[in-house]
């Protein structure tokens, strides 16, 4: 059974000035443990699509299923990571990380032990009493990921999760977050407008058209190497070919 099934999703926004078609008949499936990339130009409806899968937004038509069950609202099996880390500066790292547990009334000893374990494993245990401003951009992103993992979702949605970082940090964070997601065995859907990032992280890549967003192309990304990581993928000879293929399809004009 696929982890996520998206069937004929369309979305129109209604405003005083008229109707804005944002998504048009989008369908795809994501199997368990897969890392999916979605790349498309700004404003093509990527965030809209993820909001719908996250259950935060109702589609105009079509439906989303999570492990075969029809999605009706926010679902605890789905974790959502946004563009900025959105750590709360008035909370310590530890308090930030258990935010989701607090909201879901899940602050139980074994959940807290899980959090403790994650902080330990991913090198944030010594920063638990620090405030977000005392951490580097990369560590903040890691804390944000642990906050998402703390509620133990099966599926992660990443909406341009790295675009607020500078280029070097971003390469390192891509690698870091990718390894953590793989180690924790999560299914992931990542949305980005950055072609390189999309290619180096995903196993399958969907290219979206301009608004109203449709899926123009689906590419299987395979590198001839074992234990690929985003950094090693960037080095691979196939990388360039995939890049050109996606670039052509994206049809970027200045």
């Amino acid at each position, binding site marked *: 059974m696929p982890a996520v099934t998206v069937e004929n999703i369309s979305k129109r926004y209604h405003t005083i000035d008229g109707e804005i078609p944002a998504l048009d008949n989008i369908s795809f499936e994501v199997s368990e443990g897969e890392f999916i990339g979605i790349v498309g130009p700004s404003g093509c409806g990527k965030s809209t699509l993820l909001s719908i899968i996250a259950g935060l937004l109702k589609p105009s038509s079509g439906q989303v299923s999570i492990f075969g069950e029809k999605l009706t609202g926010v679902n*605890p099996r789905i974790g*959502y990571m946004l563009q900025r880390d*959105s750590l*709360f500066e008035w909370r310590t790292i530890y308090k930030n990380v258990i935010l989701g547990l607090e*909201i*879901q009334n899940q602050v139980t000893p074994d959940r807290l032990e899980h959090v403790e374990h994650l902080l330990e494993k991913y090198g944030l245990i010594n920063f638990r009493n620090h405030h977000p401003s005392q951490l580097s951009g990369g560590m903040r992103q890691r804390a944000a990921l642990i906050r998402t993992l703390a509620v133990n979702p099966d599926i992660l949605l990443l909406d341009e999760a790295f675009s607020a970082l500078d280029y070097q940090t971003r390469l390192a964070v891509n690698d870091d977050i990718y390894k953590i997601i793989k180690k924790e065995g999560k299914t992931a859907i990542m949305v980005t407008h950055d072609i390189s990032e999309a290619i180096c992280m995903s196993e399958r890549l969907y290219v979206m058209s301009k608004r109203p967003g449709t899926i123009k192309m689906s590419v299987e990304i395979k590198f001839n190497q074992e234990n690929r990581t985003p950094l090693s993928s960037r080095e691979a000879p196939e990388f360039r070919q995939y890049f050109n293929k996606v670039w052509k399809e994206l049809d970027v004009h200045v």
Partner: protein
Amino acid sequence: MYKQESEEQKKYLQKLKARKRLITALRILLLIFIFVFWEAVTRFNWLDPFIFSSPGRMLNTFIRLYNEGSLMTHIFTTLWETVVGFLLGTIFGILIAIILWLSETCSRVLEPYLVVANALPKIALGPVFIVWMGAGPVAIITVAVTVSLIVTVLEVYTGFLETDSEKIRLVQSFGANRKQVLTKVVLPSSFPVMMNALKVNVGMSWVGVIVGEFLVSKAGLGYLIVYGGQVFQLDLVMTSVLILSVLAALMYFGVQLLGKWISEKY
């Protein structure tokens, strides 16, 4: 950071400290100068001490009032009214702001009323309150509350609306309901705005109470000021104003300390 401070860093810190001391010294000197100057010009009769009073005469008045035993009563009357007015104005202001945030319909309907109420000089309602509630502390506190309430509502509500929408989406993605969005995100992120409203309200409630006492004229520092003016005892007026400014400053610092304490604790 280096464990071993370099000579340059030490010098820099010393310079910073010296400058801070200089500023404090100058502030105190300025205060002393004002009082000495005031005393001198009235002592030499360049200015009429009967109209301008003087630090010496104010001190005498203060001691006389204190010995008569009425001073503390007046101070406490005013202080009590101000603190109650301040607390009510702030608490109700924040509560109303929360209600407006919870119901968009409510805030849209009330918007023009709030704008008009904000523009209205609330003092104008003083006589109305006296007629309704009698010439006593209740009317005075009501004036103080009206003066601070509307500003608090508008300022805090605007602060609520400026909450980072991405943070709200984040907690919603964890399944937060409206109440949780309020308590987990909106209230804590608006803490600086609320502290600011509190500080503004200190001044507002003093204005409200003093004006209320002007109108009611039974007891309190506001009453002393009006009475002193009417019987041409400028010593009494000036002494009361001075006490008033010390009290207002103390209350302001109190609120500031409270804010620091809360933000360190949470």
